[in-house]
């Protein structure tokens, strides 16, 4: 068991554990916190995979923006959250649980069965990847970049218009 594997197992355990925690907690706020933990775990996995830039972006965007937003949303809708003993699941949760676990097993089976065309090159260089990514965005993948920017703009305007209090 190399160091890397140890770290991987650790990160995986953290992510999956907090994911389970998120799903099972009674109050949504705590669920949100567990979700943040999951984002942290995923960021760790990214860094482990050598995508340092992406890890930090993950932290910055998911934890810094989305999680905060969700927390805000939860706090702005207090009344329902008020009573902790409200049942947190709808009626169909046993069925869904079965389906989710079936899905998980199927996916895992799928993963194990297909032989992935592994690349033979050496380890990726952790540093300097941000520059290539930036270049990539600006040259070959200019269209997705522009589309994403337009999407963000539209989402921004949309959210403001919908959520604005008259």
């Amino acid at each position, binding site marked *: 068991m190399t160091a890397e594997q140890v770290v991987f197992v650790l990160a995986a355990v953290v992510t999956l554990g907090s994911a389970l925690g998120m*799903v099972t907690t009674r109050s949504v706020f705590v669920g949100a916190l567990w979700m943040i933990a999951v984002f942290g775990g995923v960021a760790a996995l990214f860094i482990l995979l050598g995508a340092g*830039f992406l890890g930090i972006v993950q932290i910055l965007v998911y934890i810094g923006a989305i999680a905060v937003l969700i927390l805000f949303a939860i706090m702005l809708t207090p009344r329902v959250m008020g009573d902790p003993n409200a049942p947190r699941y709808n009626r169909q949760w046993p069925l869904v649980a079965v389906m989710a676990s079936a899905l998980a097993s199927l996916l895992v089976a799928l993963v194990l069965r297909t032989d992935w065309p592994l690349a033979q090159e050496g380890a990726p260089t952790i540093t300097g990847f941000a520059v290539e990514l930036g270049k990539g965005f600006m040259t070959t993948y200019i269209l997705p970049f522009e589309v994403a920017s337009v999407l963000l703009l539209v989402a921004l305007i949309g959210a403001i218009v919908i959520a604005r209090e008259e």
Partner: protein
Amino acid sequence: MSSVPLSWYLIVAALLFSIGAYGALARRNAIGILMGIELMLNAVNINLVAFWRYIEVTGLAGQLFAVIVITVAAAEAAVALALILAIYRTRDTVNVEEIDLLKW
């Protein structure tokens, strides 16, 4: 080559995906569902980066796609929450089962 085989990452991602799915499906609270969906998106990101790392390191596509997924997730979360707030403001509830006007 890193000692951790690709399949491990994919398994973790798959599990995370399923848990996210369960979270989205089982929750009564709209924001809970949203969080479940965010989890599923993260699982997808893991897969993408794993594929980038193990299959096509030279290419940019993997990571770049992950970045795009992140931006889309952000936009989606913003709009979803705006909707949820708007619904909350008008109907004083975020419980999905009570928001069921769109039926026969």
